[in-house]
């Protein structure tokens, strides 16, 4: 299809185009590729990109193939977020929040038999059914929007040719004018821990039919914190092992508060510990040993389940990228892309978790995919804006943020040029239940000069995601501290405490909010 190559204009790099194979050269000459666009990976980014391009009249195919986890867990169309990420995670977090609510309810007069017990199997079945209905929904949408769905594992033959392999090993060769890589990432296993293979990852936990029992979660990533948080919340004996710092890349004062709350909520935190080995006992349970780097001692305990949350690897190793000449960062395995998501090969693009330096979030992958499709179709020139992307960590007490961390604001602007407003507040609902609110905290970073443009906002408390989303718009629009305090709050809410921020760190005054 002619006129489809416009997206190439956005490719600004000096790298030489690789010489296409004779086969694809001929095809290009005749303008006869099988597809205008072929997307490898049917997750958040790939589905969004393929549907958008098809709606703009292109002939599009998307390849999605789920390699089962080392434990044999497999799932349907939709990628990480739908099957083993955001969706089941948020629903299990909700299950845990309900447990707390049930306990609180007695203080509000509800007569609830105690102890309340949680049944994993019921929860898991309901969540898994929902995920399966989403898988089906994605299939229906692709069909509806005339995107060809191929349940094949794709790899490059050359820069216009993909080989797809089916579950039974059958090979199909497909050609396309443009190719988008959206293969995402998968959980890592620690390389130097004997017995590591006895553990599971986040790819498995959401598909457990029965309770994981007493669990050790290893890793201070948000995935580790969130999983340890909901497991604790539904009443399981849960330990979380963190080697160095929690929530790397996030504001560290906030990260500390989040983990402080987890401890008070019942998660056992094993700080500065490194796993040494995992062994299966005759009872079938797992004995784990670790070294405590602070005391220098070797410790151990027995668990029913060990879950690794020690990071994710980009899914690029099996794509034969070298055949198309697409370079990756050798350290991370991620694809290096420019502002238009272009790789150094003019007709090959990459979006989502597989790309270097991008946030690993569903909404960014979706937006990047849609915009890329529109640019490729010559509809717009707009690039994806990755600045001030809000996010939330769904720990038992949620943490939402947008913009710079305090560390980043200080290093970018200098301590003397930023003002930090902060407050320890107490959600009204907590007062009746006598729930501790020691970690309910808000911090806002502003420029010190003039109207004080807001650089970053951090919020720990109930419904942090819902709170931050609206402020993210304001901050994206370059809102200032003066504008924020001129906005009337909604009473009684937690979000109004953001509008009421008035104590600066510089003043050293007590930031605890009092009164109404």
């Amino acid at each position, binding site marked *: 299809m002619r006129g489809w190559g416009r997206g190439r204009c956005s490719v600004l790099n000096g790298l030489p185009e690789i010489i296409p194979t004779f086969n694809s050269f001929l095809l290009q000459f005749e303008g006869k590729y099988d597809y205008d666009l072929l997307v490898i990976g049917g997750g958040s980014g790939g589905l969004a990109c393929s549907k958008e391009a098809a709606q703009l009249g292109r002939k599009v195919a998307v390849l999605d193939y789920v390699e089962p986890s080392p434990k044999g867990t497999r799932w349907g169309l939709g990628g990480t977020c739908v099957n083993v990420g955001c969706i089941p995670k948020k629903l299990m977090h909700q299950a845990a929040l309900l447990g707390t609510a049930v306990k609180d309810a007695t203080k509000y007069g509800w007569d609830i038999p105690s102890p309340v017990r949680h049944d994993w199997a019921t929860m898991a079945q309901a969540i898994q*059914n929902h995920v*399966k*209905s989403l*898988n*089906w929904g994605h*299939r*229906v949408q692709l*069909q*509806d929007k005339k995107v060809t769905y191929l349940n094949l594992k794709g790899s490059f033959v050359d820069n216009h040719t993909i080989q797809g392999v089916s579950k039974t090993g059958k090979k199909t060769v497909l050609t396309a004018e443009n190719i988008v890589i959206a293969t995402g990432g998968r959980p890592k296993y620690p390389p130097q821990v004997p017995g590591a293979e006895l553990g599971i990852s986040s790819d498995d936990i959401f598909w457990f039919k029965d309770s994981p029992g007493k669990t050790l979660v290893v890793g201070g990533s948000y995935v580790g914190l969130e999983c340890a948080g909901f497991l604790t919340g539904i009443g399981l004996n849960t330990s979380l092992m963190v080697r160095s710092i929690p929530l790397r890349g996030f504001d560290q004062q906030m990260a500390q508060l989040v983990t402080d709350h987890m401890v008070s909520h019942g998660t056992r935190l094993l700080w500065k510990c490194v796993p040494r080995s995992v062994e299966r006992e005759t009872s079938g349970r797992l004995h784990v040993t670790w070294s405590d780097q602070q005391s220098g001692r070797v410790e151990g305990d027995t668990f029913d389940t060990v879950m690794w949350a020690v990071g994710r690897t980009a899914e690029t190793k099996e794509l034969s990228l070298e055949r198309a000449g697409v370079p990756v960062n050798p350290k991370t395995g991620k694809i290096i892309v420019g502002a238009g998501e272009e790789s150094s090969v003019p007709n090959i693009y990459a979006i989502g978790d597989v790309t270097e330096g991008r946030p690993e979030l569903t909404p960014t992958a979706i937006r990047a995919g849609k915009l890329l499709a529109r640019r490729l179709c010559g509809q717009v020139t707009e690039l994806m804006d990755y600045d001030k992307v809000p996010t939330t960590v769904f720990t038992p007490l949620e943490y939402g943020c947008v913009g710079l961390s305090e560390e980043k604001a200080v290093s970018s602007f200098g301590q003397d040029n930023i003002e930090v407003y902060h407050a320890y507040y107490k959600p009204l609902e907590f007062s009746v239940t006598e729930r501790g609110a020691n970690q309910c905290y808000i911090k806002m970073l502003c420029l010190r000069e003039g109207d004080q443009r807001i650089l970053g906002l951090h919020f720990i408390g109930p419904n942090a995601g819902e709170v931050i989303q609206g402020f993210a718009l304001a901050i994206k629009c370059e809102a200032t501290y003066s504008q924020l305090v001129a906005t009337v709050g909604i009473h009684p809410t937690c979000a109004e405490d953001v509008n009421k921020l008035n104590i600066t760190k510089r003043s050293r005054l007590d930031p605890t909010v009092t009164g109404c």
Partner: protein
Amino acid sequence: MVFVEINVQSLDSFNRALEENKGKAIFVYFTGTKDAKGLSWCPDCVKAEPIVRAELSKLPEGSIFIYCQTGDKSCWKDPNNVFRKSFKLSSIPTLLKYGTPQKLVEEELLNSELVQMLFTED
């Protein structure tokens, strides 16, 4: 015929059909009840039926196709309609694969490729 069609109009006969065909792949088409002359009050059902019927030959070997008439107009519009409640139906026509989340409703049933997908994929 590789499949068996069963016509039902009551929850009892529906449940009996399910009971008798346990273990088989069961597809259910919920539609408005036809009058004595064989005419349906539900225009969307009238449009969808020939498209669904045209794909029946794609049903898997040994499967069951339950053709379920959910009531006349007033009966269907009643929020307590037994089929509405038992199968969480929001609209007719609805085609589903029993015991799975796979389901197509209204205009989706005008797309024969979608119907075929529901019949053929697990």
